[in-house]
C-alpha cells in the first residue's frame, strides 16, 4: 500500500498546462526519483503533494492521497498536520531555508513542538539526539549556533533534522544537493539513504542529476515538458532507456573525451602561484597570520589544449582563474608568450588582456542587463580595436554570433530575453571576439541543465578545434572535465593534489581525493 499516491495530476497557470496527467506513487521504504530538465514540472509536482503550489498555479485535475487523506478535500488543519508531520520536505537552497535570526537548535525544537507529538520536557535532549543522528557530531555547539555560522552541508543536515523531527512517513527532497559540493552531495544523500533504511521512509527525490539517481533511487520517473515519459526501475532505465528524452539525458553525461594534441608548444607558464589573505585580530587589528587560498601552484598550458582544474569549493580553482586575468592580487609569476603578466600595468596590461579572456559560471550575472547583446559582444572591440569602423565592428559581432550558433537578430535584444544556455553562448562570443590565446572557463556549465551542458561542451570543443584557443576549464564535476580536458589538475585547499593527462588521472588516480571526486561524479 503506497503512502503517497498521485493520479492524473494536471497543473495549469494562465491557460498553460505545466504538468499534464501525471501519476506516481511512493511506497514506504522506497525511493522514487523524478528526473527532468528545468521547466519540466518536476518541482511543481513535488510541491503539489503537500498542496504548497505557488499562487497563480492551479490544480486542474487529479487526485492526491497522502496516508488515505485526499489533499484536495483536506481542511487547512488537516493539511497542516500532514505538512511536517506525516511528510517532511527538504529544499534546494540551505542558505535561505533556515531563519537567520534564530539559533538552529530552537528551529529544530519548534518543528518538534508544532505537531504536539512531543512535550516541552526533555525537548533539548531530543533535539541533540536528532542532530547527532543526522551526523552533526558536536550537537550542543551546533544547536546554539546561528545558521550563518554553519557550512552549507551542516545547514542541509539541519534541514533534514527538521524534516525528520516528527517521524514523517514521506520525505520530499527537492534537489537537496544542487547547491552543495560533490563530496558533500554524497554525504547528504548517504545520510538520507541511511535514514530511509532505519525509519522505513518513502523518499521522493527531485533531481536533474542522473548519476545520483543511479545510486540512490529504486524507481525513476523521467519528466519532459510536464509529461511523464518513462517510469521504470532505476536499473532498467539505465540499462535500456526507452524514451528519447531519457536517452538524451543519459547521453549528455557521457561525452567522449577529446582527441589528444601531440607536441603543442607551451603557451602559458604559471610558477609558484600563491594568494594569501591576512588575518587581523585584537584591538589594534594587527596582522597575526595568513590564510592561503592558493599555495605554490605551478602548471603549464599548451596551445590549443584544455587543462581541467577540478576541486571542491574553497580549493582555489576559481582563484586561479581570477588571478590569470589579474582581477585579484597574487604572488608568483605567469608567463604568457614570455611576458610576465604579474608585472604589467597600465596600457601594456590592457593590451595583454585581449590575450586572456574569461567565461563566468552564472550566465544570469555575467551579462550587463541593460546593454544589448550586440553592445556586450562588441565592447572588447571598442577597447582593443579602436580603428575599426562601425560597419566592420557590426560585421565582426555578427560573425561572433554565428560562431556560437545564435541568430543574427540577437544583437538588438537584451540578455534577459535568452535562456541560460543562450546567455552562456553570448558570454563565449564576448570572450572569443578578441581572438584570445587563452580562455578561462569558470564552471561555465554548472548552472545549466544536463542536455544544455552537453550542447555548450560540444560548442566549446568545436570552437577550440577551429581557433586553436587554449582552455583553462574549471569545474567541480569530473564528468564535465572529462568531456573537454586533455590534461587535468586536481586541487585541494589551494594545493595541487594530482596533475597529469586525462587518461592518467582518470584511468589510474593516485590520490584518494581524486578517487572521491570520481565516485561523487559517477565517472
Amino acid at each position, binding site marked *: 500500500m503506497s503512502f503517497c499516491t498521485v493520479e492524473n495530476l494536471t497543473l495549469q497557470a494562465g491557460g498553460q498546462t505545466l504538468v499534464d496527467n501525471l501519476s506516481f506513487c511512493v511506497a514506504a521504504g522506497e525511493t522514487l526519483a523524478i528526473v527532468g530538465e528545468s521547466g519540466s514540472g518536476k518541482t511543481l509536482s513535488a510541491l503539489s503533494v503537500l498542496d504548497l503550489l505557488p499562487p497563480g498555479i492551479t490544480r486542474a485535475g487529479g487526485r492526491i492521497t497522502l496516508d488515505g487523506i485526499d489533499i484536495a478535500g483536506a481542511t487547512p488543519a488537516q493539511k497542516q498536520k500532514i505538512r511536517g508531520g506525516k511528510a517532511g520536505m527538504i529544499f534546494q537552497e540551505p542558505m535561505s531555508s533556515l531563519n537567520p535570526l534564530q539559533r538552529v537548535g530552537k528551529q529544530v525544537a519548534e518543528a518538534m513542538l508544532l505537531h504536539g507529538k512531543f512535550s516541552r520536557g526533555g525537548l533539548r535532549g531530543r533535539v541533540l539526539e536528532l542532530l547527532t543522528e543526522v551526523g552533526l557530531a558536536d550537537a550542543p555547539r551546533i544547536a546554539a549556533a546561528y545558521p550563518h555560522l554553519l557550512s552549507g552541508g551542516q545547514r542541509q543536515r539541519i534541514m533534514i533534522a527538521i524534516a525528520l523531527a516528527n517521524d514523517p512517513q514521506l520525505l520530499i527532497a527537492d534537489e537537496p544537493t544542487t547547491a552543495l559540493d560533490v563530496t558533500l552531495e554524497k554525504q547528504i544523500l548517504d545520510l538520507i539513504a541511511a535514514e530511509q533504511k532505519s525509519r522505513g521512509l518513502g523518499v521522493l527525490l527531485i533531481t536533474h542529476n542522473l548519476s545520483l539517481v543511479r545510486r540512490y533511487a529504486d524507481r525513476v520517473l523521467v519528466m519532459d515538458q510536464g509529461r511523464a515519459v518513462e517510469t521504470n526501475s532505476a536499473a532498467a532505465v539505465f540499462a535500456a532507456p526507452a524514451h528519447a528524452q531519457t536517452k538524451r539525458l543519459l547521453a549528455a553525461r557521457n561525452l567522449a573525451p577529446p582527441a589528444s594534441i601531440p607536441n603543442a608548444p607551451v603557451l602559458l607558464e604559471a610558477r609558484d602561484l600563491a594568494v594569501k589573505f591576512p588575518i587581523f585580530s585584537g584591538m589594534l587589528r594587527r596582522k597575526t597570520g595568513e590564510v592561503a587560498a592558493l599555495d605554490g601552484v605551478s602548471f603549464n598550458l599548451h596551445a590549443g589544449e584544455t587543462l581541467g582544474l577540478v576541486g571542491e569549493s574553497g580549493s582555489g580553482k576559481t582563484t586561479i582563474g581570477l588571478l590569470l586575468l589579474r582581477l585579484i592580487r597574487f604572488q608568483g609569476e605567469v608567463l604568457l608568450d614570455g611576458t610576465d603578466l604579474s608585472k604589467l600595468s597600465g596600457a601594456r596590461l590592457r593590451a595583454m588582456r585581449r590575450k586572456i579572456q574569461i567565461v563566468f559560471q552564472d550566465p544570469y550575472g555575467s*551579462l*550587463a542587463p541593460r546593454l544589448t547583446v550586440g553592445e556586450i559582444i562588441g*565592447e572588447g572591440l571598442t*577597447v582593443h580595436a579602436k580603428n575599426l569602423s562601425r560597419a566592420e565592428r557590426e560585421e565582426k559581432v555578427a560573425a561572433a554570433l554565428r560562431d556560437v550558433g545564435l541568430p543574427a537578430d540577437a544583437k538588438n535584444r537584451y540578455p534577459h530575453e535568452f535562456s541560460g544556455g543562450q546567455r552562456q553562448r553570448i558570454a563565449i562570443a564576448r570572450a572569443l571576439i578578441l581572438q584570445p590565446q587563452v580562455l578561462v572557463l569558470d564552471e561555465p556549465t554548472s548552472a545549466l541543465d544536463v542536455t544544455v551542458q552537453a550542447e555548450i561542451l560540444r560548442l566549446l570543443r568545436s570552437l577550440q578545434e577551429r581557433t586553436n584557443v587554449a582552455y583553462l576549464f574549471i569545474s567541480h564535476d569530473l564528468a564535465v572535465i572529462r568531456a573537454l580536458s586533455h590534461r587535468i589538475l586536481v586541487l585541494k585547499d589551494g594545493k595541487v593534489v594530482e596533475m597529469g593527462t586525462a587518461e592518467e588521472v582518470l584511468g589510474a588516480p593516485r590520490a584518494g581525493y581524486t578517487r572521491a571526486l570520481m565516485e561523487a561524479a559517477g565517472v
Partner: protein
Amino acid sequence: MPLSPLWQRRTKIFRAHRRGRFSLYVFAVIFVISMSANLIANDKPLLLEYRGNLYFPALQPIAETTFDPSFLPTAADFTNPQVQAAIRAHGWMVWPPIRYRYDTIVWNAGSFAPSPPSARDWLGTDEVSRDVLSRVIYGLRLSILFGFGLTIVASIIGILAGAVQGFYGGLTDLFFQRFIEIWSGMPQLFLLIILSSIIAPSFWILLAFLLLFSWMTLTGVVRAAFLRARNLDYVRAAKALGVADWRIMLRHMLPNAMIATLTFLPFILSDSVTLLASLDFLGFGMPPGSPSLGELVSEAKDNLQAPWLGFTAFITLAGILVLLIFIGEAVRDSFDPRKTQ
C-alpha cells in the same frame, strides 16, 4: 535619422503610457507658455509703428522722447494714456494678450486690492494690485527653470559622488560617507537665514546655495547600486576585457543605478519646486517683487477674504507637481528593460 530599435521600443512604451503622455503634452504647453512669458504678458507692445518706423518695445527699451520731444528722455511707459495717445496719433501698436508684466501695477482695478477676477484680470489682482495671471505665468517660468537647474546639477554631482564611492569602496567610501554625514547635519535653513541677512539672494546665489545641500539625495542610492555592481561578473568581465574604469562606471554600472535615479528624479524636481516655493513663502527666497508662487501662497494666507489667490496658488503648485510625477513614472517605465521586450 532613424532611431535604434531600442529607442523605438522605449518611445513606444512611453507613448502607450496614456497618463504620462497626456501629462507631457500639458507640461509642454505650460512650459512653452511660461518660457514665452515676455511675449504673452507684458506691459509693452510687441510691435509698434510710429511715423513709418517699426519698433519692438518688448525686446528693446525705447525712450519716451521718441514719441514727443516734450516727454522725459526715460524709457517709455506704454501704460501711460498720454504716451498711448501720442503713438496712436501717428501709428499703431500690437499688444500681447495680457497687458501686464509681473510687476505692473493695475491702477484702476477697483477700490480694494486684491480685487476679484474680472474680464480684464482673469485671476484678479494681488494685494499690491498686480495681475495674478501674469504673475503665475512668470512664476511658473522661474520655478521650472530653478527646478530643472537644481535637479540637473544636483543629480550630476550626486551621481558622480555616489559612483566614486561605490566603485572604489574602502577608504574612499569611508571618508566620503563620514563627510556626507557631517555635511548633511548642517542646519540648512539657519544658514539660509544668515545668508539672506547679509546679502539679498539672487536666482543664482540661491541656486548655488541649495545645491550645496541637495546633491546628497542621490548619492546613497547610486553608491549602493555601484557597491552591489562592482563585484558582479559582468563588471569583472569588463575589467578582464581591459575596459577603463570610467567607462565601466558609465556603461556597465551607471545603467544599474539609472532606474533608481530616474525613480528619484521627478521627486527631486518637484522637491526643488516645493523648496523654492516654501523659501519664498517664508521670505528667504527670491528678492521681493519677484514673481514667485511661494509669495502668492503667502499673500493668499494673509488675504483669506480673497480666495482666488489661494485657489490659484494651490491649483498651480499642485498641478505642476502632479504633472512632473506622472511624466517621471512614464519615463521610468519606458527605461525598464523588463518592459522593453
